[in-house]
């Protein structure tokens, strides 16, 4: 499915790359400012041994962070949804959590947790959990009144209403949140590596950038983008597997 439909964006991407490749020499943009896709490609292939370690470190970090972050995000959403009082109380605090700048958090995290995995994970989690929580909460709330009435009349307790009605109903919203979170998780990992790490794309990029090697910086971006796309695609695939019933309905609204 994805394979078959994938040619279109790939085409546009290739087109964009070609335009880029042509425009850069045309406007005499120097390589240190904006290398051409060809130069980036060559560099990407040649320096594979240099960055492969960094790449795998970032992959591990972001997958771990995403998994923990989205579990926490879902958990928080569920708890806040099931206990309206908690929700009223903590919902505004959630928003606050998104507004602690990393620049301030960074020294505190490092001072409290050292240079290990934990402070980095905390940053990715902080980035990932928010879109999921918001999306899931909204999904839980928007169940159809008619179905809710039936469930209640049938004697479903709060847990049953949640698991049999609200949870499956919120699935599309949750996946929407997961997609956003997956996209952010890679960036989150890279940012967290600026916190002080020995390896990772973030480190690779900072080093490249500080020795003015723009082409390598772009290789790093390329890696980040590919990773995010992979993560996103994985979520889309999962969504297709999980939400099977919506074959008709709004999906094919080719009216």
């Amino acid at each position, binding site marked *: 499915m994805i394979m078959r439909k994938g040619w279109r964006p790939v085409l546009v991407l290739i087109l964009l790359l070609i335009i880029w490749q042509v425009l850069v020499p045309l406007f005499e943009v120097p390589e*240190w*400012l904006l290398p051409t896709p060809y130069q980036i490609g060559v560099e990407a292939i040649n320096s594979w041994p*240099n960055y492969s370690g960094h790449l795998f470190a970032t992959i591990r970090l972001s997958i771990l962070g995403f998994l923990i972050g989205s579990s926490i995000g879902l958990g928080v959403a569920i708890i806040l949804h099931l206990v309206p009082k908690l929700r009223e109380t903590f919902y505004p605090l959630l928003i606050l959590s998104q507004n602690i700048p*990393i*620049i301030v958090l*960074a*020294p505190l*995290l*490092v*001072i409290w947790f*050292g*240079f290990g995995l934990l402070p980095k994970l905390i940053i990715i989690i902080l980035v990932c959990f928010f879109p999921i929580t918001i999306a899931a909460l909204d999904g839980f709330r928007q169940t159809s009144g008619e179905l809710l009435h039936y469930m209640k009349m049938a004697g479903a307790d709060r847990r049953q209403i949640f698991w049999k009605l609200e949870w499956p109903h919120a699935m599309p919203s949750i996946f929407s949140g997961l997609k956003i979170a997956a996209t952010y998780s890679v960036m989150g990992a890279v940012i967290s*590596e*600026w*916190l*002080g*790490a*020995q390896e990772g794309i973030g*480190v*690779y990029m*900072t*080093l*490249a*950038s*500080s*020795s*003015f*090697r723009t082409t*390598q910086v772009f290789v790093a971006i390329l890696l980040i983008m590919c990773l995010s796309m992979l993560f996103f695609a994985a979520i889309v695939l999962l969504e297709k597997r999980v939400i099977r019933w919506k074959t008709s309905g709004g999906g094919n609204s080719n009216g």
Partner: protein
Amino acid sequence: TEEAENPGSDVANEQQELQEVTMVLDWTPNTNHTGLYVAQQKGYFEEQGLDVEIILPGEAGANQLVASNQAEFGIGAQESLTEARVQDIPIVSIAALIQHNTSGFASPKDKGIESPSDYEGKTYGGWGAPVEKAVLGSIMEQEAADVENVDIVNIGNSDFFTAVERDIDFAWIYYGWTGIEAELRGDELNMQYLTDYSDKLDYYTPILMTNENLIAEDPETVRAFTKAVSQGYEFAIDEPEQAAEILIEAVPDLDPELVKASQEWLSPKYQDDAAKFGEQQEQVWADYAAWMFDNGLLDEELDVEQAYTNEFLPEEEN
């Protein structure tokens, strides 16, 4: 430090137990740090019984990390250490890595900026700190120019080369890195070094620092560390090419060309005219702090005695 607490657990190594020490840089690795990598690579740290891990500061900032003992040692600069001490942050300078300030205001040659008086009517790109305006004012004063006629723009994270491509006429750089990069690119720069215009501005940057706590409780480690570092820098002074190779090997992601050229330029400047590597003079600390205070950059005066010490520099010359 965790392993140090249960010695002999899985250390099948010969010799004595090495003490683990963390060293945090001020930025990404560059030729300012060569001596550290040499000391590590050549085993000078090990000889002193130290196992040193060199880390990048990231967003956390070296000063706080050293102050809070997350890292025992760090690279800093006199200006920020002065500010930090005034805010009661307990860090101490234990060696000057470069004797004289190598920074200055640089501009592409075609901008025609030959001296501070030419700054008038031009646009300066900085990072928005008050100290910049004060320094600019200080050196422009010498030529009876007025800093108010300079348009100061914050360029944030943009690097020098990007900034001067557009809007910006000149910026503050370390010649040993950015200036050398310009040489390698064949860009010609006009450079006004701070030291050429005011002695007060000839402060130490970068410096090696540690925190008061460590000095009080474990001066031996400080002494050992400083000794190894001195050895490293002395090697870098004597053997610039080899030292450059060591740095390139340790941090392969750096541009070797830049490292070699920069190292060659910088090696003679580590010790320069000082009696021995790393030595700091009270005059330099006092003058600069006074200058900062006079320019309203400090809330209170600096207790100079507390800010630095030469006590840990190795006694004998190698």
